[in-house]
């Protein structure tokens, strides 16, 4: 289980997250939604340990990892698909994949398996990372994260730039990932995906949690939630 407790985060002098508490168990898929600039990506980066906490705690299975370096957090079994994909441009597709597996124990996901689910990557296996199209890079980024066989997978807008067919395919893949015992934290603009997958949802607004609840609760309060997202009222604290 991964959690942020009362997290405060800032870039330089600008506060971006204030008092955010979010948790995700290993057997659930949670989604974080919110407007552009609400702090979704920041939340994921903070969970991953890429940003320092000004206040609050970062937890993994009850263990305090607030002060841990990113590489250690990663080796605990947390993987991130960042919003800008961050493919290594000077490495080939194959090497990018190998990088994903390097620091981790082998598991269900192997290079053969990810190439099976993304046949496009197999076709481009010897290409340089910087030669791929936008969508291909996105697939590679997801595949690379899977190869670490994480216990928790943090996905920042994983469907961005992907063709509708692949988006549908991804939903199946994430379901499969979840069945393999991996918890997923999903940040999405495209509401279709979290609606189909997430067990619980958090709505972020101006760097604070404005609403949270289960899928069923969301279904029931859909109107309220939509209005929170669009107008940003009703802060929870």
């Amino acid at each position, binding site marked *: 289980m991964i959690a942020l407790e009362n997290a405060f985060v800032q870039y330089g002098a600008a506060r971006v997250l204030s008092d955010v508490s979010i948790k995700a168990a290993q057997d659930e898929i949670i989604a974080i939604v919110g*407007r*552009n*600039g609400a702090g979704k990506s920041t939340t994921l980066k903070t969970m991953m340990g890429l940003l320092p906490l000004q206040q609050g705690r970062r937890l993994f299975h009850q263990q305090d990892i607030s002060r841990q370096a990113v590489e250690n957090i990663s080796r605990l079994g947390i993987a991130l698909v960042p919003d800008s994909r961050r493919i290594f441009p000077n490495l080939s597709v194959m090497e990018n994949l190998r990088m994903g597996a390097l620091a981790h124990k082998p598991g269900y996901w192997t290079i053969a398996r990810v190439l099976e689910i993304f046949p496009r990557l197999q076709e481009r296996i010897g290409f340089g990372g910087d030669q*791929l199209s*936008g*969508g291909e890079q996105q697939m590679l980024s997801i595949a690379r994260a899977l190869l670490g066989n994480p216990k928790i997978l943090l996905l920042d807008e994983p469907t961005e730039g992907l063709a*509708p067919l692949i988006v549908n395919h991804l939903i199946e893949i994430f379901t499969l990932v979840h069945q393999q015992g991996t918890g997923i934290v999903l940040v999405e603009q495209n509401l279709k995906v979290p609606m189909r997958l997430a067990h619980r949802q958090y709505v972020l607004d101006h760097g604070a949690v404005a609403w949270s609840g289960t899928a069923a609760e969301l279904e029931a309060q859909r109107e309220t939630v939509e209005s929170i997202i669009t107008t940003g009222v009703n802060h929870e604290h």
Partner: protein
Amino acid sequence: MSNIALQCANVSVSFGALKAIDNVNYDFEAGRVYGLIGPNGAGKTTLLNVLAGRLLQHQGKVMCHGEDISALAPHLRARHGIGRSFQITKIYPEMTVIENLRIAAQIKHSRFMPFWIAPRYDRRLADDIDAMLKMTGLAAHRHDIAGAMSYGLQRALELGLTLLPGPRILLLDEPLAGIGHQEIEAATRLIQSASAGRTVLLIEHNMDVIMSLSEQIVVMCNGSVIAQGTPEQVRADATVRSVYLGEDE
């Protein structure tokens, strides 16, 4: 012939063994909005690069209003009225919004950049810039540093920069990528109003948006145009459904 704005004649692009574009022939009529869709890696961005002049090593010809522009560098194509936005935002991150727009506006007035009459010259630009600020909804942010704005606003600025020089032909590469669910509607409207009176070529993976904006849809796959037609025709096309849209769409 005069109503053909852009024309691709036997355009092919190869990267090593890969044919990213395979003999594309297509005429884009002036004043219409074209949607360009296709699976990832189909060659859409590459085609846009060919049209905008970012990729000069290709076979075949690119014509703009009947003139062969195949060998022209991007800035010369811009002078032929071709404007382009990028999949990854390309703005001036350390300048304010208004400074960004000023650079785009001054190209319209002269290519010659006098440095001794700067203030007077700037007053002439002011009207254009104000109009663009209003159109893109950036008026309230005119003095914000562009790089520190939210992504949605940066995308709006990207569009403003593309539009200010007054292009007749707009090439838009996934202009809505990364724009939030709530802002999509406003952004769509913005693109729609920008399209008025222009030839537009739009790449987008958001089906609702592309279907509502485009008059004509062109579908690419593996470097070739595999289908075209009105949104309804394309949506109904079996091949398109199987390679791109998915069955349940």
